[in-house]
């Protein structure tokens, strides 16, 4: 099953490679990974999307916790959470496709953030599924380039991940 892990870790050189190294050394999957500093400059927050059986996810969580620089790990799947990913997608937009692309962007609540005579660049935010659905919905042939951030996640309601 797909899981979203949220990790607070020391904002130190090498901490990221420890996490990534752990996943490759122990043959765990990384579907996506995002990381950046938080309001506390000594801490980074990472979101890893992974998949595996319950036993594997349990081991991943335990192994992450074992890393000295990891402060906290939570599996967002364990309670309600919100997930967002951003995609920038550059598409061919000429002739009748131009109108169609604008319409599709609107339907998916995307924004066109760059325009040339032949192209649109669309910014789209949502769950990873929604971004996937957009790609499915448009004609493959018009896609020139896509770049996705990978999912970030946060717990719903008043629950917070803090030290």
């Amino acid at each position, binding site marked *: 099953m797909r899981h979203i892990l949220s990790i607070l870790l*020391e904002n130190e050189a*090498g901490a990221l*490679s420890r996490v990534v190294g752990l996943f490759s050394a122990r043959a765990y999957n990384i579907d996506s990974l995002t990381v950046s500093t938080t309001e506390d400059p000594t801490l980074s927050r990472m979101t890893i999307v992974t998949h595996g059986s319950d036993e594997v996810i*349990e081991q991943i969580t*335990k*192994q992450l*916790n074992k890393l*000295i620089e*990891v*402060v906290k790990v939570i599996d967002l799947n364990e309670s309600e959470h919100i997930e967002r990913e951003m995609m920038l997608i550059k598409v061919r937009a000429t002739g009748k496709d131009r109108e169609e692309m604008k319409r599709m962007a609107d339907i998916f609540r995307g924004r066109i953030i760059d325009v040339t005579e032949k192209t649109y660049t669309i910014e789209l935010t949502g769950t990873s599924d929604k971004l996937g659905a957009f790609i499915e919905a448009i004609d493959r042939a018009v896609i020139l380039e896509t770049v996705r951030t990978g999912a970030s996640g946060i717990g719903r309601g008043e629950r917070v991940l803090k030290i």
Partner: protein
Amino acid sequence: MQISGAEILVRCLQEEGVEFLFGYPGGAVLEIYDAIFRQEKFKHVLVRHEQAAVHAADAYSRSSDKVGVALVTSGPGATNAVTGIATAYMDSIPMVVISGQVATPAIGLDAFQEVDMVGITRPCVKHNFLVKDVNDIADTIKKAFYIAKSGRPGPVVVDIPKDVTQQRAEFHYPESVHIRSYVPATRGHPGQIKKAINLLLEAKRPYIYVGGGAVQGNAAAEVTELVKSLGLPCTNTLMGLGAYPGSDPQFLGMLGMHGTYEANMAMQYCDVLIAVGARFDDRVISVPSHFLSQPKKIIHIDVDPSSISKRVKVDVPIVGDVKHVLREMLDILRQSGQKPDAQHLANWWKQIEEWRGHNSLLYTPSTELIKPQYVVEKLYEITGGKAIVASDVGQHQMWAAQYYKFDSPKQWLNSGGLGTMGFGLPAAMGAQLANPDATVACITGEGSIQMNIQELSTCKQYHTPVKIVALNNRYLGMVRQWQEFFYGTRYSESYMDALPDFVKVAEAYGHVGFKIENPSDVEPVLREAFGPALKERLVFLDFRTDQSENVFPMIQNGKGLDQMDLPPHMRDVQQVPFENNRDYGNMC
């Protein structure tokens, strides 16, 4: 007053009470070696290969309550250390390894003798540091020692660039460490401890399985008290040997791939198992599904949550330090005065005695060929079971584990997790330095000893009079055994040709050597080697043993604990009652 980074490092090691620093110099650590030259508090031991420095430091830890320290230069010095670091990591041994690094401005420029030591060792250390600022040295060393020995112990590498050892700063050694992201467990959860006790008291066929965690956690006394007070049968893993006295009748021997018949059968057919600082290794329980095909409740005490339910899902996990947790269990048991049902326990012991009656470690004695098992038995007798025994890797390691009955923890030093040939001699050396009055033996093979034989020179220089017991079968015996069993006796590259004359080798290094070819000479030569006349000398005993001897019992890959290959005298025993009678519950 400001002092150099190298001097700060030396002061830190002194503050940590370091007695010996095992190392080898080179460009990146010259500043440190200069600071060592100008101090007298600890002694530097100059090995002949960095791998040996790390094994010696590791064994110094294994055989004492202290943390061994090694120092190597950058580049090849650092990479030579990696096998030793991985060896300590796999067996959860506390150790601090300091490596030199090229100067910070040169990092990343493919500088002379530059390797990314932090990157290379990342997967085989508990933690590692690159110190980029002279003001961080003291703090980092304090943390390194703390991390190495707390929680689940392990090696910590501190990589220090040359310019950092030259820069100057004030020295202040921190009194305590706090790492917000690292808080190892000590006490177990009281509710879980209660559950565990209830399970043990209700058990019909209880069993205790003790591993390296009990040795490292200094919990032998608590293990013994628990075993005695509940009347439990006890087994140890290869790493746990000595955590419960090997000569006690409640000890069933080592379990696992080369464990005794009774230890393995009891593991398979117990109904409540308590695992103490042991990690359900594949060489111990073999195939998890087969192991669990006999229903049993499992209690698991381990300080590392990731060891729990890793290969085998357990019923009562207890995260905590073995010593603390066992003490709490013993307190509760003492207060309640409860015991498991005597009748059930008696039935269980009756079954165990029947298994034990087969004597799975029986071997065929010979008057012509020296049986390796016989050498270990005699060594046990002659050293009164009191020697510290360091071992290499192979058949000789298994015979040492099977036939030397270790009564105390930290008496048996071997590479279990990584299985590193070449561990034995440097380990014996490190253990001798940590225990100057102890008798230290190194049980080895003619293959393994040659992987670090250069340390005979270090042993001479530092007067470590270890006794090398080489079970020389002229084969990479463990490999040969597998080839005999699984590859139609095609002994591909497992024969050791062109062996040196080990007696001459020993003599060339200034030691004493004996070659022993007759069984009748085994005992007298051992007596001489371990006798008062040679007490201060390193003695190399080259026992020419039976080349065809195999280690039994043996569990083949993919087989279960009750599907052992048994020694010839037990071929008709097999594990019959159980193959056809999975409903073992009816038997007791």
